């Protein structure tokens, strides 16, 4: 415990000293931008400290981060959805409720306007149904909103996946196995891979006997694929670390990094 506290104090002290130096030497400007960079560097380093172990600095940064993000996302919802989509509809509903006779006349003139009105009103009602969960009364109304979201999502996915993930994938898998150049090895492997993976995933058979043998080939394909994807990802993750370290070195410590 004592060692942890010592490490903690040394780290905080170092951070303070470095920033003091940066500001006093004028390498970081003493304005909103400079303070912002200091804050960004502090948050970054505090989150990195999780690599050593969970500690007060990480907890501080984590909790601050969660609070800021929550308010930001709420703001996004307000400015992107509530203001342009919900409030105009709410105002229209309010007007309609205030002048029900006008609405009635309009509907008598063209009954199909019920659809136009429904399109405006129903989503707001479905949204309001969710609010029953806060009041704790008539909570079952929220299920109607769930049903709409789940049902529509389930419906939309069906045709859209068939094209991209099945039909478009069949053609390229079907290639002649014998060409002028001789036996076509890669097309054969692709066919073997697709078929053996499909068989590996079938639910009807235990992985024994002939099905077991083909499934095993399927596992090999899966393993090559997972290994390759893993290896491919290492690079991307290192890129992110490079990016964040570059930020700390260039923007915070104001160092010049060599291009070559």
């Amino acid at each position, binding site marked *: 415990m004592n060692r942890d506290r010592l490490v903690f104090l040394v780290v905080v002290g170092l951070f303070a000293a470095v920033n003091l130096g940066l500001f006093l030497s004028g390498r970081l400007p003493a304005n909103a931008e400079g303070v912002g960079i200091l804050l960004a560097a502090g948050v970054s380093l505090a989150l990195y400290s999780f690599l050593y172990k*969970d500690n007060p600095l990480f907890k501080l940064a984590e909790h601050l981060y969660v609070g800021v993000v929550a308010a930001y996302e709420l703001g996004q919802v307000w400015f992107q959805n509530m203001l342009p989509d919900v409030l105009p509809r709410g105002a229209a509903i309010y007007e309609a409720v205030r002048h029900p006779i006008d609405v009635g006349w309009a509907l008598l003139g063209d009954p199909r306007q019920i659809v136009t009105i429904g399109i405006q009103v129903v989503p707001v009602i479905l949204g309001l149904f969710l609010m029953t969960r806060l009041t704790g009364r008539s909570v079952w109304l929220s299920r109607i909103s769930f049903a709409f979201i789940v049902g529509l999502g389930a419906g939309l996915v069906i045709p859209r996946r068939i094209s991209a993930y099945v039909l478009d994938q069949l053609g390229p898998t079907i290639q002649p196995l014998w060409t002028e150049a001789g036996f076509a090895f890669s097309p054969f492997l692709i066919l073997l891979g697709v078929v053996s993976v499909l068989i590996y995933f*079938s639910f009807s058979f235990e992985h024994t006997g002939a099905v077991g043998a083909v499934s095993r080939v399927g596992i090999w394909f899966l393993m090559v694929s997972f*290994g390759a994807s893993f290896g491919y990802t290492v690079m991307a993750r290192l890129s992110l670390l490079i990016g964040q370290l570059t930020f700390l070195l260039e923007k915070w410590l104001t160092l010049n990094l060599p291009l070559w």
Partner: protein
Amino acid sequence: MHHLSHLIAAIATLLLILTTPAFGSDEWFDTEALDNFLTAIAFSILVLVYISLARRRDLTIRRLGGLEALDEALGRATEMGKPVLFIHGLHDMNSVSTIAAVNVLSQLARRAAEFGTHLMVANRYPIVMSVSQEVVKEAFADAGRPDAYNEQDIFFAAADQFSYAATLDGLIVREEPAANIMMGYFYAESLLLAETGATTGAIQIAGTDAYTQLPFFITTCDYTLMGEELYAASAYLSRDPKLLGSLKAQDIGKAAITALLIVGTFLATFGISLPFLGAS
């Protein structure tokens, strides 16, 4: 078959909407999508037929290790007096991945209630949170333990991807759940969660159809439900014959595609191409 009346209602709704001036287009069928339409119809009929057949026949299916480990995880959590943490993926409720995850959660909650395990559910979407609350509450009630349900255990952890990861990483090292169960569609946070979970010695069970994250779950979790196994999980756990029937239909679909690929390749090798596949 009261679904017939539902179907009529659905089509009537659609017609009603389409005949309004707001949607003034007169093209009634996209002929380029005909192959898609026929595939969808054929497979839908297959699924529905197998679901109705399933009630009469006994269906055998292969084992899925990850699901058998769920009971082990719950048992160990109860023994250690530690919670089980269920982590939803990063898709909202309109995604099939999340729907499948909720189906698994429903079965898991039933068992957790029976075992008397403390179940925590982390969410990144409020609608998923609300649905999960409903699901867990009903499951606890069904299992005769409505008193054990606490709405605050199914919580909104954070509002974006990496604050979600930060909070859950913190939660995992501080609460040390006996098991971390990650279900749904995941992105880069998969490894942030699973690698942190691996250091606490928790049993980790993942299920995702996010192809890019499978390598990380496979290596860092004890059990991983890969791709369609996530969708099948609720059928396995509930042992409901109707749900199991739809798995059989999937197998028939796979068999048909396999046959098509092999026959198609055979024909292509002899210079005959199947025009409807657009084979090159």
